[in-house]
C-alpha cells in the first residue's frame, strides 16, 4: 500500500519561551490519506495551527515525527498550499498579482502558464473580472477567495486551511463552503481543514478529528458517513445532522 499523504507519529511539541514552557501537543498520532479531506476541531490554543505548521515544515517537532508522502519533514516544503484565517493579501498588488505572487516570490518571475493558471483559478473561485482590482476594493469573502486561489497556484498536493472562513459572516461562510466542495470535486486535494464549526466540518470533511485542550492530542477520529459529490442539499441530510449533534455534545463534554 502507498504511504499516506500525512502521518503523525507520537508527535510532541513543546515551546520554550521567556515566559515559560508550553506543552502545545502531546502524543499526537494520525494519518491522512491522499486526497482525503480531514477537518480538525478543538478548543482554542490546543495546538491546531501548530499541527499545520509542522506539516508545512515551518516548525521542527520536539519529539516524534511528521511524514509527508513517506518522507520525514525537516524543512519548509513548497509543495504545500496554505490558506490563513485572514486573507493577508498584499494591499499594493492587484488580485491577479496576488494570485501569482508565490511564483514571483519564489523565482522572481511568473511564467505564461502560471499566469494562465492564475486566471483559471480566479474563474474557479468566482472572481472573473476582478483581476485588476486591489484587495481593498473587495469584500472579506472575495479576499479570502483570492487567498484560496493563491494557495492553489503552484498546484500543491496538500492544502492546509487554518480557520479560513471564521472571519466571514454566516451566509458568506456557507457559500464559501459549497464553493470549496465544488473546487475539490474538480481537482481533488489532500486537505487539512481547521474549523470551530461542527456543521462545517461534517459537511466538508471525509473525517473529523476532535482534539483535547492543551496539551492537545487527538481525542476522537470520526468518519463522515456521507459520500461525494456533495452540495447544498447534503447539508440537509440526516447523517450530517446526526454527526453534527454527536460532535457538538462530544466537544461540550470532553474537549472543553
Amino acid at each position, binding site marked *: 500500500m502507498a504511504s499516506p499523504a500525512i502521518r503523525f507519529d507520537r508527535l510532541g511539541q513543546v515551546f520554550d519561551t521567556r515566559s515559560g514552557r508550553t506543552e502545545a501537543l502531546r502524543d499526537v498520532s494520525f494519518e491522512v490519506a491522499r486526497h482525503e479531506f480531514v477537518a480538525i476541531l478543538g478548543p482554542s490554543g490546543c495546538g491546531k495551527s501548530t499541527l499545520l505548521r509542522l506539516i508545512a515544515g515551518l516548525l521542527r517537532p520536539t519529539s516524534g515525527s511528521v511524514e509527508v508522502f513517506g518522507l520525514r519533514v525537516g*524543512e519548509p516544503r513548497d509543495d504545500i498550499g496554505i490558506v490563513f484565517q485572514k486573507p*493577508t493579501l498584499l494591499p499594493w498588488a492587484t488580485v491577479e498579482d496576488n494570485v501569482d505572487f508565490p511564483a514571483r*516570490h*519564489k523565482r522572481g518571475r511568473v511564467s505564461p502558464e502560471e499566469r494562465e493558471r492564475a486566471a483559471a483559478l480566479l474563474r474557479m473561485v468566482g472572481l472573473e473580472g476582478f483581476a485588476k482590482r486591489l484587495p481593498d476594493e473587495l469584500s472579506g469573502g472575495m479576499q479570502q477567495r483570492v487567498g484560496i486561489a493563491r494557495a492553489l497556484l503552484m498546484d500543491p498536493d496538500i492544502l492546509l486551511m487554518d480557520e479560513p472562513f471564521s472571519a466571514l459572516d454566516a451566509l458568506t461562510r456557507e457559500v464559501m463552503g459549497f*464553493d470549496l466542495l465544488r473546487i475539490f470535486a474538480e481537482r481533488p486535494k489532500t486537505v487539512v481543514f481547521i474549523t470551530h464549526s461542527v456543521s462545517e466540518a461534517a459537511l466538508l470533511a471525509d473525517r473529523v478529528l476532535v482534539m483535547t485542550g492543551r496539551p492537545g492530542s487527538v481525542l476522537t477520529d470520526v468518519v463522515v458517513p456521507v459520500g461525494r459529490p456533495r452540495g447544498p442539499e447534503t447539508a440537509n441530510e440526516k447523517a450530517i445532522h446526526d454527526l453534527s449533534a454527536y460532535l457538538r455534545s462530544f466537544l461540550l463534554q470532553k474537549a472543553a
Partner: protein
Amino acid sequence: MTSVPTYAASSSKRQPKAMTDPVAGASPFFRRLATAPGMATLGSLIAVVILWELTARIFAIPSYLLPTPSSVIQSFSSIGYDRWFVHVWATLRVAMIGYALSIVIAIPLAILMLRSPFLSRTLYPLLVVVQSTPVVAVAPIIIVSLGAGDAPRVVITCLITFFPLVVSTATGLAATPPELIELSRSLRAPAWREITQIRLPFAVPYIFSALKISITLAVIGAVVAEFCASEAGVGYFIQFSTSMFRLPQAWAGLIVLAAMSLALFQLVLFAQKSLFPWSLPKKD
C-alpha cells in the same frame, strides 16, 4: 455556483457620501472654489494678516516687537530675488543632501537590524543616545572638525533626520503580517526577496510617516547648522537680520522658511500619493 453571490458584493465598503454640502446652492465655480482644499485656510490667513496690520498701526507697536505685514512684504522685495535665490538654494541644498543621506543610511540599517538581533540590541541604545544629545550642543564640534563647506551642515541635518527614519522603518519591517512571512518561508524563496517583496512594501506607510517628519526636521537641521556656521542660507539670513535688529527682514526669512518646509512636506505627500496610493490612510 459559479457567479459571485450578490450579497458578497454588496458588503463592499464603498457607499455614496451623504449630501450635506453647505454650499450646494452656489454656482459650480464658487462651490469648487469654496470647497477647494486650503481655501478656508487661505481666507482666515488673509483675515489674520489684515487684523495684524491694523492692530500694529493703530497701537503703533514698534517694529522690533511686532513688525507690520506690510513692512515684512516690503523687505521681501528690497532684498532682491537673486539674494533670496542664493539663501533658499543654500538651505535647500543642505537639507536635501542631508535628508537623502539619512534615507540611504537609515533604510539599509533598519534592514540589517531586522536580520541581526545582535546589531539591533547594540545599535538601539546608541541611536537613542545620539538622538537625545542636543544637536545644538554638538554642532560646533562637528563644524570645527569638518571644516568649511556643506559637509558639517549636511552631517548635522543627517543626525537630526536619522532617528525617526531608522525607528519607523524598523517598526514597519517588523509589522508585516506573520502569515506572509510563513508563506515566504514555505515557498523557500530567497531571504532578500522576503525583504523586497514583502517587508519593505509593508513598511512603506511607516517609512512615509517618518519621511514626512524628517523632511521638516531636515529644514530645521539645516537652519541649526547655519546658525553655527555658514555664509548663506535662510537660517543664516534670519540670524543676520536679527543681529542687525531688522525684524521685518527676519520675519520675511521666517515666512520663506515656513513656505519651504510646507512645500517640501507636500512634495513628500505627493510622492506617496502618486507612487504608493494604497499606503495612505483610508478615508471613508
